[in-house]
């Protein structure tokens, strides 16, 4: 039975950033580490063990799958990973969740100005 996106959120911070990085294009391990490091400005530096455990789990949940290497790197023996359709949906659902949380914060702060 295919899993519902909502069963898989909230996402662990690591998983969220991996999916976000893969949203743009398929990446290999090193590329993922660098993309995430740059997006979080050094805040999240993944080490090999955690990265691949997360990839394995995301693969088991069908959010991520192995992909063929892109054209410019077609001879390399690196393994590339791409986000799946389900993965895209989960990412969107998570973004929606965060958006509603952020809106709640803004609304509450606006209603009670003295709390700033």
């Amino acid at each position, binding site marked *: 039975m295919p899993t519902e996106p909502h069963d898989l959120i909230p996402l*662990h911070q690591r998983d969220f950033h991996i999916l976000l990085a893969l949203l743009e294009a398929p990446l290999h391990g090193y590329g993922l580490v660098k993309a995430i490091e740059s997006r979080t400005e050094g805040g999240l530096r993944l*080490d*090999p*063990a955690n990265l*691949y*455990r997360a990839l394995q*789990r995301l693969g*088991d949940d069908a959010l991520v799958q192995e992909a063929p290497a892109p054209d410019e790197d077609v001879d390399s023996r690196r393994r590339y990973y791409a986000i799946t359709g389900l993965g895209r949906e989960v990412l969107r659902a998570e973004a929606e969740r965060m958006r509603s949380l952020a809106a709640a914060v803004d609304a509450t702060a606006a209603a009670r100005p003295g709390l700033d």
Partner: protein
Amino acid sequence: MLTPTSVYRALLAVLPPTLRSRHGDEMVALYAELYDEVRAEGGRLAGWRFAAGALLRLLFVGAGSRLGALGPDSPTPRPTDPRFRERAMLGILRDLRFALRTLVRSPGYVAIVVVTLALAIGVNASIYSIVGTLLDPPLPYRAMEELVSPLSRNTELNRSTPAVSRADLEDLVAASAALESGGGRHGETVALTGGDEPVRLAASRVTVDYFRTLGVEPVAGRLFLPEEHLEGADRVVLLGEGARDRLFATGAPVLGVSVSIDGIEHTIVGVLPRALEITGAGDLYRPLAGGSGAPNDRDRRDLHAVARLAPGATIEQARTDLRRISQALQQEHPETNRGWELDARSLHEAMVGPNSRVVFSLMTLAVAFVLLIACANVAGLTLARAGQRARELSLRAALGAGRGSLVRTLLVESLLLGLAAGLLGLVVTRWIFAGLRFVGGGQVTLFDRLRLDPDVLLFTLLLALATPLVFGLWPALRVCRRDLHLALRSGGPAGADIQRVRRVMVVGQVAMAVTLLIVAGLATRSVAALLSVELGFDPDRLMSFRLTLDSVPTAEAPDRFEAFGAEIARLPGVRAVGLANVRPVVRAAPTQSLSIDGRPDGDADRGSVERVVADPGLFATLGLPALRGRVIEQRDGADDLPVAVIGRAAADRYWPEGDPIGERIRLGERDAWRTVVGVVADVRNADADRPPEPRVYVPLAQAPTSAMAFLVRTEGAPADLADAMRAAIWRLDPRQPVDDMRTMARIRIDDLAGDLAIIGLLACFALVAFVLSVAGVYSIVSYSVTQRTREIGIRMAVGARAGDVRRLVTRQGVRMVAGGAAIGLAAGLLLSRLISGMLYGISSLDPVTFVGVPMALLAVGLLAAAVPARRATRLDPALTLRAE
């Protein structure tokens, strides 16, 4: 080879099989890529940090995945599942609490393990740091391996000096294709005025290419310009960072500032790196100008030179060139270069010394031994404890604890112990550095720059952590949980293994302790011999200092010195005052060639002797009575007959048969002919391990000198009068710097500072090793008594006497100690051969050491075994038999 990547690959084994097989290779590749990147950007330390972090996280991922597998929940619970996190956190906290409780229950074990490991960690980390700093001095030179140090040697006159003459230096750099540049420096002391106190600084004059050859960059300002090396244009100064900080307020500008050096205004044009102070070249530098005091005099070999090898050249090529050039120079300039050879050695060797490698290898060996002994001890204790906890562990297993849980318990305990040991080890390192600085007493400037090498600390920490881990886990993992209890008992298979391993380790410990003790013993006896060398004078209650008279013409210096001397002599507590141009032990006297009236000036008789300028008070102060004739007296004034007094070595060498009194001698080319009026006993100078050199004393009044050392014999402790002496000098001249005021006792210690420091360390290690191995013997024998209570009970019940039981128990201990001592003795013999070159006053087979040490260890080892043996004899057979 143990590269970080191979370690990472090996540790993949902790991962669950699925993760490992699917992504293992990728993980290793990614790890290698990231490590290289971090290392390239951040250096070795950053690389280590990354590696440690990645390895730790690997372990946690592995442990975490497996932990999940042991629980009743779903196979791979999501990390965001609140239940998982809660359970994991509770689990970790629970483990910590449990581990702490267990450890607290055996305080003896914890204390011994932590202290043992801390000592080993501290000692290892400090020694490797020290050796690292000493072997690799942090000098601001470019490509130090390309630098060589030329030296001059004259085999006929049996003299060699690590210096060359200026003309020779220019010639050798120009004529050798193997050398691309060269420069030299000439040491001097200068008086700097304008500050709070007149201050005398060590300084150097350097040739045009000196700094360029070394590759030194200034930290502020610039280096000298070529035109500043000309007479008249050389009123510029380069200051060392340390001197700048001492002389000027922080942040005050120094470039372009004018200072007065020896009464002449100079401008500061640059500041040099602090690290240069290690070389002892001094606090400030001035250009060596052409034409000042005949610097081209080929006979003045007073430049400490460095030269840089040309690209691709080797030091051997340079040395060959130098040999060839020496021949040419001997032909072209026979009057100055006859018999003189030029040679070179690497700058590194010139700085660090030829004996250093052996000493450092010894220290690293010694310290590695201590580490091994410590780890062996801890391993033994942990194994014993594992055996004792067999019951507890098997009970938990029977109640359903998975192997993972048992492993985790032991893991956390070991980590806690290791952590504590690591922290304590850092403290030990700090103590050791402080101790070395104290002994060095400012003489060994390198000790001030000791820094803990982070690589070393990390390595030792990991080793210390691994030891209790491995030796605690190994028995637990070896057997299946059900049999744990039975297997770990001393009769069971794993139990017997454990005991055998422990016995072997104790033999090893004893061997290492014996070796260390032998080496330490030899070194100690050698230094003791050095210290008790017959000095020729009484070193007690002797204070000394130097005065250099700048503002007085040299001809008037003797009167001035006499005034100072009289002022000092008036102080209460002063028994005698004497002056000499060099102080015994501190420095060798300058040498000059000796001519004897009536003897042809052939090479055979043209020896060189030490020249000491002395006032009449020197002989009484040092306690040097005349062996023949008289000493220098007041009547030997500037207008009186030129006289000299000679030492016994000179008398024996040059007048073996006849009487030197009344003979006429001359030192060098320009002195007057002097009549020998007396012979005095010899005094040892620097280099205690060489016999006294022939020396000639000339009266200060007849050989005015501007720089003299004062030797003051006091009634009580000389240090008490230090302030009074300085005040006495300043009463006569408030602007006179008083230099290097030290008691003779301190001078002797400083002289041997380096050796004493090494001995101290060796002795420490040996002692620690000794204590640890004795403890090891005790604990093994004690343990075996506990295990064999039943057997002993039976023996006593069937009639064995106390003596038999004692012998039975101690036999095991004796075998281990004897075996270890034999191995240690053999190793000690081998090592002593290596260091025989450095020993003084004792043979490398010194019987006192080689017999004393094994005896001592045997005796103490027997004692250690005897205590539990006595306990065994006190066992009541009835009780023991009933207990089982």
